[in-house]
């Protein structure tokens, strides 16, 4: 785990002081709301429907037990006893008072946390594969490079007033859990011809109202040039990205309007002119960071999950979906589902956070991860501890055995919280979850990612859902448009609209119909996504829009 030294801590403390001063100036009227807005946004403070919402950065989705406890403390002290883990691997608190925000950030700073650049038109909190350092498939640990990016991008003097927000994601694994092709910049750690480590660089991906699967703009960038290359991309974007229309201001529009080839030429020309030695990281800094991510002291584990576990069908169900192979023999990676049947995706109470912190300390070397699918992960669990862990999780409603199944739904806050939303997302997710609660049926359906957004901004990643649901407003009524075939993984694709939308009352039946068509017509072993890719939308359309 990365641990702040006095330099990191100094900067965070000074940031808290600065924000306290800014809030004071706002409350006294010295700053107008228009002037205050970009300042509060860059500290993660939004004005929502009912109150301020504060978003706390969880860099590359990695938390220590102490940090998780700090999040619980914030939920308890400044919110209504819970928090909401987001698709950006962050946490949001929906009921914050402006007057409290400086104290809240002061408390977080003591746990080496902050809200810096979790909103605003700047380089946002960097995200990464939640299985980093635990999965066997990775070339190198994405947390190392994510931390270097975190430092480089924090309070960047040139890139803090960009045309629009800017998101960077990093993965080191073949299986993409970080949705790198849907980010402004995606980095895939890879090896060059001589075995040296570097990145495939993707730019101009994104969701929102114009979904784009980002093109690769550089096949291989040696790792030592990470910052100078990012700086070249950001400078081209900062200068030429559109500022006349908020909906056309993301880098994906610039890349599309210039064409990937011309955009790449601009970036390469800029990069050639940059004094790389001055901008790039020192090898000693990479080494210093790397040493903080060395694997923990794994024990020699033998004996498997144990007899009690073997005899528990409930445990076995959970093991089947929520435990992933670890690179260390005898260990597993555990996904803690924050999707209880009928619950709010991503919500966790202060008590649940405290419990997860305790369990991480006891069983997972004090490490917790947050996933972009709004779940938590305990990355290093000895097989022999799995049963005890499962029992403890189950006691707090944290052992829903549904990771990757149809009830493991991503949903944005939607009209229940968000001032941008056109329709509710959470209740739709809750109803789908209830409808498919039967576990045997969920297993029969298999891998199926349902993602729900309450408006075209697509915070619920509906474009990347195997089944995507987009809430729209039609003459004051909530309607839901369905897209099929999207994927945020290494086979990234944008879902296709299947036809006219469905009412709030009918949307769950429509999902049921889609699932039925798949179950009836699939071939042996065919997942929903591969079925859709084979047959296309027709069989679904026929059934969904059949005249009764």
């Amino acid at each position, binding site marked *: 785990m990365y641990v702040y030294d006095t330099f990191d801590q100094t900067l965070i403390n000074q940031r808290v002081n*600065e924000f306290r001063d800014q809030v004071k100036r706002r409350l006294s009227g010295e700053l107008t709301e228009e002037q205050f807005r970009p300042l509060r946004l860059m500290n993660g403070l939004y004005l929502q429907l009912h109150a301020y919402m504060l978003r706390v950065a969880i860099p590359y989705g990695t938390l220590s037990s102490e940090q998780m406890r700090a999040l619980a403390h914030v939920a308890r002290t400044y919110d209504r006893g819970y928090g909401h883990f987001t698709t950006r691997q962050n946490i949001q608190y929906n009921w914050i008072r402006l007057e409290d925000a400086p104290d809240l950030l002061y408390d977080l700073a003591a746990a080496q946390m902050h809200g810096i650049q979790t909103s605003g038109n700047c380089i946002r909190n960097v995200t990464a594969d939640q299985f980093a350092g635990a999965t066997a498939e990775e070339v190198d640990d994405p947390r190392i490079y994510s931390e270097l990016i975190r430092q480089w991008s924090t309070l960047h003097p*040139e890139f803090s007033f960009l045309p629009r927000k800017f998101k960077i994601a990093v993965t080191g694994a073949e299986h993409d859990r970080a949705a790198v092709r849907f980010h402004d910049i995606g980095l895939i750690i890879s090896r060059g011809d001589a075995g040296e480590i570097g990145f495939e660089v993707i730019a101009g991906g994104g969701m929102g109202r114009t979904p784009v699967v980002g093109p690769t703009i550089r096949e291989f960038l040696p790792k030592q040039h990470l910052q100078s290359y990012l700086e070249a991309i950001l*400078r081209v974007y900062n200068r030429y990205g559109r500022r006349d229309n908020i909906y056309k201001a993301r880098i994906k529009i610039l890349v599309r309007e210039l064409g990937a080839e011309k955009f790449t030429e601009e970036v390469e020309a800029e990069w050639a002119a940059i004094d790389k030695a001055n901008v790039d990281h020192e090898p000693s800094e990479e080494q210093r960071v790397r040493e903080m991510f060395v694997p923990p002291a794994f024990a020699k584990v033998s004996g498997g999950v144990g007899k009690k576990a073997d005899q528990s069908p409930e445990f076995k169900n959970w093991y089947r979906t929520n435990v992933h192979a670890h690179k260390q023999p005898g260990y597993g990676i555990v996904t803690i589902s924050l999707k209880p049947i009928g619950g709010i995706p991503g919500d966790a109470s202060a008590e649940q956070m405290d419990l997860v912190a305790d369990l991480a300390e006891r069983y997972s070397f004090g490490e917790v991860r947050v996933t972009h699918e709004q779940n938590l992960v305990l990355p290093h669990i000895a097989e022999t501890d799995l049963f005890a862990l499962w029992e403890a999780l189950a006691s707090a409603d944290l052992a829903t055995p549904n990771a990757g199944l149809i009830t493991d739904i991503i949903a944005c806050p939607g009209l229940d919280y968000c001032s941008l939303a056109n329709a509710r997302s959470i209740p739709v997710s809750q109803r789908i979850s209830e409808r498919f609660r039967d576990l045997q049926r969920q297993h029969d359906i298999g891998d199926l990612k349902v993602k729900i957004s309450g408006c075209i901004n697509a915070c619920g990643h509906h474009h990347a859902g195997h089944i995507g649901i987009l809430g729209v407003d039609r003459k004051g009524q909530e309607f839901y448009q369905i897209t099929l075939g999207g994927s945020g993984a290494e086979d990234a694709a944008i879902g296709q609209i299947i036809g006219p939308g469905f009412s709030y009352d009918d949307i769950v039946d429509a999902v049921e119909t889609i699932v039925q068509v798949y179950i009836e017509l699939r071939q042996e072993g065919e997942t929903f996504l591969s079925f859709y890719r084979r047959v296309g939308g027709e069989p679904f359309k026929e059934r969904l829009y059949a005249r009764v």
Partner: protein
Amino acid sequence: MPVFKLTSSDHQVSVAKAPETVCMVTIDDLARGPEGMSVITGPIGLEIATDCDLDAIAPYIDQLALVIIRFEAFKDGRGFSTARLLRDRYGFLGDIRAAGNLLLDQIQFLIRVGFSSVEFDGAVDEDGIKAAIERFSVVYQTAFDSRRPIQRLRQSATPSPGP
């Protein structure tokens, strides 16, 4: 509004109100050459927009004592890259001034990318600017200014461990 000169030395920035002695000219004046500006004897300056094509002014850069980059909106971050390029890429050594709709809270960023004076639209005093400049004692990145980024400070703080 008063102009504040931001003078850097030894990693410290000092602030002082600057007397205005530069004569502003236009790009057309510059294009006409010396005869077009025969009445001007002192140093000259040019005002540009945040999205100025710097290649267009490059031929005249040596004649200029001052370039003013005018911000119509504080959110227009292009001016930061423009200043940086003017310093790094075009080697401009004169005064670069940020003028217009700017926030006090942007002052450190302005200095870091190469601005050397500032003229705020709103009322701002010397003490306010000083306080904003001193807000952060450490930085993560290398920029145009001479501040050493944290990663280099770390190198001198602790002897690097052996391989």
